[in-house]
């Protein structure tokens, strides 16, 4: 035991002080550390459980079944199409919300972002009432064009776009709003029309947010369940996306459900990795 407080060399004293400061600087107070650890466990344990219970040996066989691949293909197709639709109309909407000035703008903003907080099932019901065969709009689609949306692949895309578009709109609107207007003024003084400015300057400057918003939108569309099953039903090959297939399989064959979930988990991880590597680290606003 050497507890004596003999003379300590100055360098040694400095070293100890620095080490102590470093320790105290890093210390997390326990009232924060304990709940934080609980949160981590809460978020990770279910994922771990899924990996533990995955039927690794029969995984290849399960995934090789036609229905799984079909559901995956349909999911990817519909999520991508829904994202494309959201992009084409959502980016202009975001610009209008960020830049236009007219009465009722804030009300409009609240209304169009409502699907963010609306339970998706309610969205599905609303879509049915609008575009169903007897719906407000759907009636005429059927009457004039003989065309019905519900329970079709197109219906899946509509349901997903309805739920996911606000994610893109909100992300991109924030980017438009925080963009330095000076660049647009500079473009105007160089003879660029407002639309040219939008195309060549504004869009380019919010590029990272366009990607982030699209990825968020796509991920939300991929996981969409409530509105899809309500509006488009659950027909394998036509409207049965991965989440619906997982839910259905859970009733009959849990191993299949786990395998499908694993695939979705992998997709989610891939999306996160893409966002992180390409955009998040560069300090862009999500």
């Amino acid at each position, binding site marked *: 035991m050497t507890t004596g407080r003999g003379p300590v060399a100055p360098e040694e004293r400095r070293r100890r002080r620095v080490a102590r400061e470093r320790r105290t600087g890093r210390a997390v107070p326990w009232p924060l550390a304990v709940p934080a650890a609980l949160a981590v466990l809460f978020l990770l344990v279910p994922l771990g459980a899924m990996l533990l219970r995955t039927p690794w040996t029969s995984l290849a066989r399960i995934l090789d079944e036609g229905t799984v691949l079909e559901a995956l293909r349909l999911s990817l197709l519909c999520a991508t199409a829904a994202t494309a639709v959201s992009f084409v109309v959502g980016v202009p909407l975001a610009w209008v919300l960020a830049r236009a000035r007219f009465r009722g703008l804030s009300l409009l903003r609240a209304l169009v972002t409502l699907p963010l907080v609306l339970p998706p099932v309610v969205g599905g019901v609303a879509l049915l009432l609008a575009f169903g065969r007897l719906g407000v709009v759907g009636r005429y689609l059927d009457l004039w064009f003989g065309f019905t949306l519900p329970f079709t692949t197109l219906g899946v895309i509509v349901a997903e776009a309805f739920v996911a578009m606000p994610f893109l709109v909100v992300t991109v609107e924030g980017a438009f709003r925080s963009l330095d207007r*000076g*660049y647009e*003024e*500079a*473009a*105007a*003084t*160089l*003879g*660029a*029309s*407002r639309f*040219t*400015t939008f195309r*060549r*300057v504004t869009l*380019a*400057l919010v*590029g990272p947010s366009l990607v982030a918003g699209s990825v968020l939108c796509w991920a939300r569309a991929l996981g969409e369940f409530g509105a899809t099953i309500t509006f488009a039903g659950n027909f394998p090959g036509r409207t049965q996306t991965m989440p619906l297939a997982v839910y259905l399989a859970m009733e009959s064959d849990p191993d299949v459900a786990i395998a499908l979930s694993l695939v979705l988990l992998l997709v989610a991880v891939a999306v996160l990795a893409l966002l992180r590597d390409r955009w998040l680290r560069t300090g862009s606003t999500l």
Partner: protein
Amino acid sequence: MTASLSVDGRVDRSGFSLSLTATVAPGEVLGVLGPNGAGKSTLLRALAGLLPLTAGSIRLGKTLLDDASNDIWVPAEQRPVGIVFQDYRLFPHLDVRDNVAFAPRSRGAGRADSRRAAQHWVDRLDLADLATRRPSQLSGGQAQRVALARALAADPALLLLDEPLAALDARTRLDVRSTLRQHLADFAGPVVVVTHDPLEAMVLADRLLVLEGGRVVQQGTPASVARHPATDYVARLVGLNLYAGRLDSLSGEVTLDGGGRLVATLTPEANPADGRVLVALSPAAISVHITPLDHTSMRNVWRGRVAGLELLGDRVRVEVEAEPAAIVDITAAALTDLALERGSDVWLAAKATETVAYPETGG
């Protein structure tokens, strides 16, 4: 192409009003000086078409750009006006070449054509080596040249510069100032340079317009504004003796074009091959004496005659006819002690360390 600019108008913004009448001839550089909040930026924004006049009109040659009473307003994208912003506002997602090519491209030229048009200005402003760089990879002085090239590539009939040197550090400022002066001299149309730096204004501008609180308090050549400042602010701001001359690099002595010699301190950059320099001397740095100075450490001593006296708040500005002519600021008490009046013979003295020489131009 060479049309003069005339402004006669007013801009009202919340709690602030700018009103101004001015004309700028083709090839003339008007320096707009004023403190923060004087309305300098408002003026540039109105000229550029980013802000409409509340009353009055802006005319460029025969073209009416803004006429509040007849509801005429040409927006920025349709005005033949180039502007170099204080923060340059180079498009961060485009390289130097495409930044310069932006204006031709916006007017509908194809990518190749607009790049060809840009190339002329890229070469002219010595940017060829930087053509593929992004703005984030440029130094302040380089970015300033790109901003100027980009504005000029639009082939403007009127050129505006907002605090062109403010974003630069002191060292680069000198270099850029002299090259900028050259480029402004090459521009055929009217130029308006906004600045709060009197030296910058005096070096760059042919004529000064001083704004205070949204009003023009004085207009005139830099020399006349410095000699007869209309307000105390102008006096403090523009109080500067500025001489052009040729430097003898061995002795450090500058032979002035207008007669006389001064021993000056050289800024690090100031050793131009052709010896052309500008010498700046603050009126407060010169002392006035009524007897010859026999024993003095002052390197610059010269004789003259008082040509005018002007009271400026707590000080008196003395105009001295001499070689070189000078304006000198003294206290009211000193005026009484020296019993100066028009026609008094005086000796002026200034330390070499307060007499600063800058290179005149880049070329």
